[in-house]
Each structure stands twice: as structure tokens, then as C-alpha cells.
């Protein structure tokens, strides 16, 4: 570094200019990559890999169940969990910023608890615990959809609450003052002036949260799912076990990507637009 700076214009000792040295570095990196690919192509058993992970003969028992049951259930679980998480998260964020200490404590405890626990464990506890506390004669509506929606909602609410809190705090203090000086109550100012602006600010991270939830929905098998209510990951895994072939898991994975990749693209677009507006 200092060589090229001090000797700029003259040839350094190595006989290479800084540009030549840079090109040499790039060349070495390409060479290493090509080597890895060649070794992988020659040394690994691709024939067998294709048979196990992408075997067209399995398609006939994969479709349409993987889509009509798996993808559809994944969407239902994710969307219902997201709606619950959205409103619960909003409520907890507002409680987190409340003037009432008990509200703040509760919200704080909730967020720490559900962010600190593995989602899988929460789903297991709900799967075993809910039937116990509800009693033998009662259950949440549309079993197991009600339970799954609550499970995903409870977990995602903790993350969304922190996102909403950041958004609320990003709204300038003058907005609340203007609202209050027009005679709005604190609650009215929050609902009419602060939250609409806060939600706009956090649309990109909220979309990210939707992506996370899509993937987390693969854990809800832990609350106990039947064949008709299985989501992508469970169907993929069940079919893979049944037919001793991993192709269903690969196709389940591709189905996730069909949803998550466009959403990720959308997030980057939204973020770019907000960066430009600032």
C-alpha cells in the first residue's frame, strides 16, 4: 500500500505496477474457483446425487399434494400468524412506550421471553399445553389452524413489537405536539398521527418479518399436524421418508423460494425508495 503511494509514477521493486498487481490478485481468485468446480465435477457422484435429490420419477406422487396441501397450508399458517402478530405486536409496542409502568413491564417481559425462546419450543409447549388449559371439551377454532395462527402470532409479535417501537420513535416529537395542541388525546394522537407514519417507516422490516415467518412456519409441525393440514416442510419430509428419496425436500425448498425471493426483492425496492425519499 505505502509502496505504491510513495513510489507512484515509478516502477516498484516487484516490477509490477499497482494495476498489474491487482489484476494478478483477481486472476488467482478465479483460478481457485475454477479448480474447486473441476474437482467437484470429477470427484463427486453426480449421477447418484440427481437420483436422490432431483428424481423426476418421484414427481407423480409429489404433485399436486405438495402445492395444493403443502404450499396452501404454509400460506394459510403464515398469513394468519402474521395478522395476529401484526396487531399483537402493535399493541405491545404501544404498551412498551406507555406512561403506565405495568404496561411497559409486561411488554418488555413479553418481548424478551418470546425473542429469547426457540420458536420450536414455544410451538411444542403450545401443542402440549393448550389442550391441558383449555380442557377436554374445548379447543381453538378450525383445529389445528387456530392453534398454529396463535403460535406463529405470539412469536412474531415479539419481533414486530420491536420494529413498531423503532418506527414510533422515529416519528418526530413535533407531530405529537401538533396533534395534542389541536385537542387530540394522547390515544387519538397515537392512532391518527403517529401510527400511520410509523407503519410507513417500518414497511420494509415488516416485509422481512413476513419472510422470516414463512420459514418459521416450517416448525409448526410441533403443535401436531395431520396429513391434510401439513405444510410444505412436513409434507416434503413425510414423502421423502415414505419413498426413500430426498427430491420432495428439494421441491419443498424451491416452493419456499418462489415466495421468499420475490418478497426479498420487494424489500430491497422499498428500502431503496425510502433511502431516496430521505
Amino acid at each position: 500500500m505505502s509502496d505504491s503511494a510513495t513510489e507512484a509514477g515509478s516502477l516498484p521493486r516487484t516490477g509490477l505496477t499497482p494495476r498489474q498487481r491487482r489484476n494478478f490478485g483477481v486472476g488467482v481468485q478465479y483460478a481457485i474457483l475454477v479448480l474447486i468446480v473441476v474437482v467437484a465435477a470429477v470427484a463427486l457422484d453426480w449421477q447418484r446425487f440427481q437420483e436422490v435429490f432431483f428424481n423426476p420419477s418421484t414427481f407423480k406422487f409429489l404433485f399436486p399434494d405438495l402445492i395444493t396441501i403443502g404450499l396452501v397450508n404454509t400460506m394459510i399458517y403464515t398469513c394468519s400468524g402474521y395478522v395476529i402478530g401484526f396487531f399483537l405486536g402493535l399493541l405491545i409496542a404501544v404498551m412498551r412506550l406507555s406512561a403506565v409502568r405495568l404496561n411497559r413491564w409486561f411488554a418488555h417481559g413479553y418481548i424478551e421471553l418470546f425473542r429469547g425462546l426457540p420458536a420450536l419450543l414455544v410451538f411444542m409447549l403450545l401443542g402440549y399445553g393448550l389442550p391441558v388449559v383449555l380442557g377436554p371439551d374445548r379447543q381453538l377454532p378450525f383445529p389445528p389452524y387456530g392453534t398454529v395462527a396463535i403460535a406463529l402470532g405470539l412469536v412474531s409479535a415479539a419481533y414486530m413489537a420491536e420494529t413498531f417501537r423503532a418506527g414510533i420513535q422515529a416519528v418526530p416529537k413535533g407531530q405529537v405536539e401538533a396533534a395534542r395542541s389541536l385537542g387530540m388525546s394522547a390515544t387519538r394522537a397515537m392512532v391518527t398521527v403517529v401510527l400511520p407514519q410509523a407503519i410507513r417507516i417500518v414497511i420494509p422490516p415488516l416485509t422481512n418479518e413476513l419472510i422470516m415467518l414463512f420459514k418459521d412456519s416450517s416448525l409448526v409441525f410441533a403443535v401436531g399436524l395431520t396429513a391434510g393440514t401439513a405444510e410444505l416442510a412436513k409434507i416434503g419430509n413425510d414423502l421423502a421418508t415414505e419413498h426413500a428419496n430426498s427430491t420432495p425436500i428439494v421441491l419443498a425448498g424451491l416452493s419456499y423460494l418462489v415466495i421468499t425471493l420475490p418478497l426479498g426483492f420487494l424489500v430491497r425496492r422499498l428500502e431503496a425508495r425510502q433511502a431516496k425519499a430521505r
Partner: protein
Amino acid sequence: MTEPVEEAEAAVLLDRPMVSIKGLHKSFGDLEVLRGIDVDVRPGEVVCVIGPSGSGKSTLLRCVNLLEQPTAGEIRVAGDLLTHRDADLDRARRHIGMVFQQFNLFPHLSVLDNVTIAQRRVLKLGRAEAEETARGLLASVGVGDKAGEYPARLSGGQQQRVAIARALAMKPKLMLFDEPTSALDPELVGDVLNVMRDLARTGMTMMVVTHEMAFAREVADRVIFMDGGVIVEEGTPGQVIGDPRHERTRAFLRRVLHPIED
């Protein structure tokens, strides 16, 4: 619903002050910002508050509508004791308009909705009635053609005039202005001051924190000079700006009127 209005009218009839501030103290932690302020503002009077930065002018104004909770002292507006612990501040603030240095328009609402939102959500008026009032006010402050725009598309001077219209939509008995032209490009100041001058002529009671000495001289009935959290000097504009008695007032006016020479 009609109670504050009747109170305000009673205040006019009895020539009770519209604003009565007694023994006002305000501290932020250890910092005592207001150190005993007594001011009465008569109905229809225009009072300009001047003074150096940090002297407590904004805090005084923000105590009048209880955006800041006074540490000690009494605030009465239109007869209501706002510093009473059972005072209904949300109701009281309906008829105390406030205009901020940074405008504080609601950026997610159109200009028209900025002016109708409190009418509809606070006064519970219908959309048609609120919009009629709003359009009239927007026209009267010279931004009638901007009703459909969003605040970000307006110049600072236009935004501040919308902010004035927004406050007036609540039919206030008192208007508080905190350096309404300080954030504006110089060529836009005149439009806002013209609107304020017109408002003063309609008989509106106004408290105006400002550095615009020409405006204070012309429009104010009374000028208050504050420094260090107390009122140093008050009187007619001619007295306080034209012939100040206190050295601190003279020093301040020299700096404001001849900034280059300093």
C-alpha cells in the same frame, strides 16, 4: 360542548383576561428555565415576546397550553384554570391554537386533511362541513389551490400558512405562535407575517414569540422582553423596542437590529 365558548365570551363581557399567568416557574431537572412569570393578556390583545435564545420564550408559550407542565404557578385561559389537577386539557387545547417554528404539518395527510382532521376527529364534525371550513381558511391564507397537495410539495411559507389554517379550523379563542418565521427563507417571511397581521385585525388574541421587530412594532399591542427566565421589561412597542429602559434590552435589540456590527 359549548361550555368553553361561553366561558370565553363571558371573559370578553367581563373584560377578564383571556390569558392569566401567575407566578409561573418551570424547571427541567436542575435547570430553572422560568423563574416567576406574571402576564395577563386581554381578549383581542396581541402580545409579542422577544428575548435572546434560551431565555425561556418557547417554554413560556408551551406552558400556556400545558404542552409543558409548570413546576409552580397558575395558568388560566378563558377563565379555565388549566393548572388545576382535574383540568380537562384536551378540551381546553381545542380552543388554544399553536403554530410551531418547524410547522409540524402531518406529512401523511393532504393539505386539506391536515385542516379537517381535528375538526372531524376531535370536534366530530361531518366531512362536508369540515372541508367547507378548511377550504375557506386555506383560501384566506393564500393556499386555496394547494388543498390536494401533500405538505412536502409546499414551500416553507406555504406550509406555515397551512399550519395557521389548521389551528384556525378549531375556532380558537387564543393563538400561540413560536417563532413562526424563523425557519423560513427570507423572501417567504412576508407572506406569513401578512396572514398574522390580518388575523390580528380580526380581533384574535395572540401571543407571538418572534425576532421580527418590524412586525412587533406594527402589530403588537404590547411587547415583553424576557431574559434568563424572567420578564425584564414590558410595554408598548414604542417603549420596549423604541426606547428601552434596561441595558439588557438595549444590548439584545442592538444585536437583533444590527447583527453585522457585532
